């Protein structure tokens, strides 16, 4: 991957991280405010949990996007490295929900 492609990848990853966090913050705030104002518990807590899951999924998505981009650029070393990180995160998921 050359320097221009790397910068493009960085901007793309930056957008994923920025939008993921923003979406998560909106859901967390909405869920929290609804919970505190006595809205139906299941609806409010679904929003809060959704916000948390998006927060945790954002870095995972960032790693997956890098792996795809490195594969497309035929940069095999970095494709392998990012895939290893992705597999490790999936390992965490497997431990969490076994």
């Amino acid at each position: 991957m050359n320097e221009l492609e790397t910068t493009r990848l960085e901007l793309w990853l930056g957008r994923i991280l920025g939008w993921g966090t923003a979406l998560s913050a909106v859901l967390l705030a909405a869920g929290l405010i609804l919970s505190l104002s006595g809205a139906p518990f299941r609806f409010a807590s679904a929003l809060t949990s959704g916000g948390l899951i998006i927060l945790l999924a954002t870095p995972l998505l960032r790693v997956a996007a890098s792996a795809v981009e490195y594969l497309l650029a035929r940069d095999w070393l970095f494709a392998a490295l990012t895939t290893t990180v992705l597999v490790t995160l999936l390992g965490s998921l497997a431990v969490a929900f076994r």
Partner: protein
Amino acid sequence: MIPELSPLLSLVLFVAGMAAGAMGALLGLGGGVFLVPFLVLGLRLPMHYAVGISLTTVIATSSVVSSGRLGRSLVNIRLGMVLEVATTAGGLTGGIAAAMFAPATLQRLFGIVAVLAALAMIGRLERRNVLLDPDIDVGRLGGRYYEDESGAVVCYQVRRLPLAMVVSFVAGSISSLLGVGGGILKVPALNIWCGVPLRAAAATSAFMIGVTATAGAIIYYGRGEIIAWMAASTVLGVLAGSRAGFAIGERARAKWLKVGLAAILMVVGLLMLVRSR
């Protein structure tokens, strides 16, 4: 042991998140080093729950900080992606191991790490950068970026990669066990041993800690140790606070402020040691 949802406690967590986020941003760390002791000593939350909440704030901080910095070549994403192999492996290991430790043991470990971090922080007030000729070949992992302060292009090569990998693995484990980012270990190591300039080391570390903390946070979430409304209140506070902290940090050459915060961290670390039972 786990408090019921209440507006007051939610507000307390939000404010604590803000304070921790601001102090963390000033010091170039996440807020976890301040947040975990507050949750454990102040709110009497069990250690594992405090760590779970703190990990979610580490992810939020990393994502927000990196989204603003990426594309300006300060973050060395190639180096970051190599080291992430080690930090996430450490994060996974620490996340599994955390269940095997008693809360008091983790609390003592936290105290030791916090005291060492405070000492390291005072030591790194004098920044040291290895400046190279701008035309040098920085290799596959090295980097170059434009530094506003000096108005020059800073170039660096990465030395002792295996050592950086070992430190990253340890930092990842510590992150999952204690709910901190682990930058406290990686940044000085990358800077002093591997030749990465301090700002690039800090930016690259901030980029990595989100993925690292995710490896641990997923496991805490699966064990039911992340209380959603508590994490939500704290994360929102940290997001607000870290913005303020960066704004202050960029403006003021806040050397004495940093010494002060390092002193607070030292006291907090000692309290975690003394009160661990």
